[in-house]
């Protein structure tokens, strides 16, 4: 199975560096400086730190401030921009632990923004 998350986050990394001020504003700012572990069920995982200077992507097995874990099919839907991570959470297919809700909810908005805004700009 080809890698999904690595190419996706590496692909948006440059866009993030150039545009994060237009993406992470107002109530989304608490995401800055936090890291989220993204996992495909029975597949790859990586940790992304949402920094002001860029996305810090690592595969070193760190836990992150939160974990988003869902199926490959749901990830494909999220990566397309059709839905956000929170859509999968509300469908009951992605855990949403109480102590991780802030980074998960903000990352959900930010990733759908990046994907669809980048597409709209093309």
């Amino acid at each position, binding site marked *: 199975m080809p890698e999904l998350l690595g190419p996706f986050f590496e692909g948006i990394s440059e866009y993030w560096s150039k545009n994060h001020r237009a993406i992470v504003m107002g*109530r*989304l700012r608490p995401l800055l400086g936090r890291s989220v572990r993204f996992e495909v069920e029975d597949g790859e995982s990586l940790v992304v730190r949402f920094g002001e200077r860029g996305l810090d992507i690592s595969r070193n097995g760190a836990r992150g401030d939160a974990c988003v874990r869902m199926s490959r099919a749901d990830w494909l839907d999220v990566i397309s*921009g059709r*839905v956000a991570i929170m*859509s999968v959470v509300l469908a*009951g*297919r992605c855990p949403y632990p109480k102590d991780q*809700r802030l980074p998960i909810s903000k990352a959900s908005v930010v990733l759908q923004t990046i994907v669809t805004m980048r597409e709209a700009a093309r």
Partner: protein
Amino acid sequence: MSHTQRIASWVRGLRFEDIPPECVAKAKDQLLNILAAIFMSSGHPSSRAAITGMTLYGAGGPSTILGTNLTAVPDVAAYLNSFNAQLFEFEDWVNASHAGATVIPTALAVGEAARVDGRELLLAIVVGNEMAGRTGRAILDGAYVGNSLPNHQVDTALTAGRLLGLDVRQLQSAVSLSCFMAMECCPPGFITDAKALINSVPISQGIRSAQMALHGLVGNVDMIEHSAGYLATVSEEVDLDQLTNNLGKDWAISTLRSKPFPICGYNISAIECGLQIARENAFGSEEIEEVVVYAPASTLLAGTRYHSLQPDMYRQFAEGTATHMPLLFDVPYPLAVALTHRALLPVHFTREYIQDPALAALAKKITLKVDAQLNYAYYEDFRFGSRVVVRLRDGRRLEKLVEDMPGAPGNPFDVRSKFMSGVAPVLGEEGAARVAELIDDLERHGAEELGHALRAS
């Protein structure tokens, strides 16, 4: 002085003369708008189920269950009236907090029971909005957004407390008792009638706490801001400065946004774009090839949030595991209705429309994308804009931009017309007009008189 004490002192000491006339006018607008929302819901089967269930062992009391000829004790009447205000998501918000569906039911039910005059009723409405707006701002950076902000145990207790004449210490007790069991909603409840209880539950706690504080029940003095208190319990991020900065100078009710359509507030401008396109151009919905909605991220957050459900919303509606509720947060379905029927009303969230295959087919042609400028305008300036592009089979490209929603400050819609269309079917044209006149001149009337005028015969 603690935040809770400062707030309680302000609530106790506020005089009608201290409130700017434009804020009093906003309170009257809010009253008209929320009454419309309540009356529009009052014949719905879910409303009837709630009222029958809550009065199973008897009705009766000093407060009106709106849209009926029944009365109840204040917390029950307010609970049911709030349920109806929320059933079609047809209410309002100040700052970021959905205030009208808590403040108006609380003020009407307690005000009617306490037989306060119209000035005191209007003052209590302004107080409730101030507290909802400020606590909403205080937790705005946390995980909750919009209608799910868990802050109403503060505003309901203080609105009721003011109307019952509580002193400063009693007000502190009332709000602290109300906030003791801090309530948060479970997000999956937004696909059923459960969501309509979102303000009812804190209302009953707020009113009961104020009544008990009046008779000597003692609560803490600082539950709102305590480091292990209410706001710290319901939110990861808390900005306490929002609670009292410029209290009595900046008025939350001046930010009132009333909804012209039964829909989540994030989606109003997208619907307005669709309605303008449909009303200004001649085309049939079957001619539509593609629709793209450009909007702030918040519109995508709401408008696609139920697109991963399995089975999907329509199937769950048919099977009875969901109600119309998730469609009130959707963009594709209500936009399809707007483009097809050139209107969006509560009736469009009934079975006849939800199960119309043509609407479902058109909804599938609608996609959403974040627009950088509209996104900035929302997250930095609280402007709720959208742009919609419709492509037709004959090659026509129809586009409309709405920079801020109708119902925003400076961009009003006809609230009185909404009021008449909601209330007249229940009270009759004459009865509805009489209520509107009472509200226009509420300074010279009383809450009990208003409550009686609102009773169905």
